[in-house]
């Protein structure tokens, strides 16, 4: 099979307007992947499926990843003008001062696709796509029109992460009920507090049972 770099070059040759980024994986698995832009994702996917060398006819896996907002603390070197009186005369000097700045890097949701070729017996080729943010711009194109195996997996990603797949023929919740409003696999998901009866609580369950009692201000051993 072509290496990931060669695939990237092939995509760029076939679709010059598409933006493809190589994401290297330094871990022992050495599975590099390609981050594609959602705007041209369908065209790229169609190319990967139909290209004579690649023939990636099987989409084996769709995964969601939640990347929450990150607070980054960094030290920045800033030029500062300092006015000072030196030996009776005003002088202005410039000095390099180190400043600690905090900024919040906005989070996003990501999907990961693993593509294989049954015909050519090779794979996987791994694709990523990122949403703009985690709140209101969470649309990504659906690959269900190209690979039917994506249908249920995209529904699961929609259910658990809240990514909206445009072009999906039947985007409903898969695991949770229709009335459910949350997305349980997101990092900021708050679970229902139903730890009212814990006869043998320990570790994590004990912590939650105590938090439940504290929230309702029930004394230990007390009854609701």
């Amino acid at each position, binding site marked *: 099979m072509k290496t990931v770099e060669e695939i990237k070059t092939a995509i760029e040759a076939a679709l010059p307007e598409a933006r493809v980024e190589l994401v290297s994986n330094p871990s022992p698995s050495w599975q590099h992947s390609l981050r594609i832009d959602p705007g041209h994702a369908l065209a790229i996917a169609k190319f990967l499926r139909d290209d004579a060398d690649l023939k990636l006819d099987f989409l084996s896996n769709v995964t969601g990843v939640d990347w929450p907002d990150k607070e980054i603390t960094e030290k920045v070197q800033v030029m500062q003008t300092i006015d000072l009186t030196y030996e009776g005369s005003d002088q202005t000097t410039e000095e390099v001062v180190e400043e600690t700045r905090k900024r919040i890097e906005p989070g996003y949701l990501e999907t990961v696709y693993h593509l294989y070729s049954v015909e050519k017996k090779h794979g996987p080729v791994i694709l990523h796509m990122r949403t703009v943010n985690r709140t209101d711009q969470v649309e990504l194109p659906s690959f269900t029109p190209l690979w039917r195996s994506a249908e249920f997996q995209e529904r699961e990603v929609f259910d658990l992460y809240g990514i909206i797949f445009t072009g999906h023929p039947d985007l409903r919740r898969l695991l949770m009920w229709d*009335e459910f409003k949350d997305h349980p696999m997101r990092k900021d998901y708050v679970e*229902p507090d139903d730890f009212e*009866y814990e006869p043998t609580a320990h570790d994590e369950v004990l912590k939650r049972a105590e938090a439940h009692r504290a929230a309702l201000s029930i004394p230990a*051993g007390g009854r609701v």
Partner: protein
Amino acid sequence: MDEGLKIELGKQGVFVTTIAELYNWGRSNSIWPMQFGLACCAIEMIATTMARYDLARFGAEVFRPSPRQADLMIISGTVTKKMAPQVVRLYNQMAEPKYVIAMGACAISGGPFKQGYNVLKGIDRYIPVDVHIPGCPPRPEALLQAFMTLQKQIDAQPLTGAGRPRHLNAEAQGEFPVPVPGEHDLEPRSNPGVWPLPILNNR
């Protein structure tokens, strides 16, 4: 009636019993379970009905695929919050007298999925459970033990007075409210009529 006299009369060819004894003997030896399984415990339940363990010895060989014809609901496995309303609805559709065995760690408490957001922490929050069996999954012997425990409970039940079965008590609750799937969790989280929050003595 005196037990010795009863045996003596039996030797003379006279059979003496009470209505309650006869009635309970009848219903405790013809408990037909409902044919439904929820998770891996169901595999053990199937094994219990097969030749090696043979639940038929206790009068429970007929698994009915309809709640209308079943007496016993074996909650065999994990009850997810999505499934819980259906389980309660099936229980409501069963005709009295009806019994429930909660089989396995998940059915009695949520088991290994207790910390999850999607598993009900014990089916006894919504319906009355007669026998709980721990285990993950319980062995067929444990299910047989639970079954025999249920039979003993039925045999010991008086037909009049405070401890009488639900179908002989006009004031007893016959239908149990089905929880509604809400925006974050099932609503309500438990049925206080069935499951008043137990007091913990260990703290």
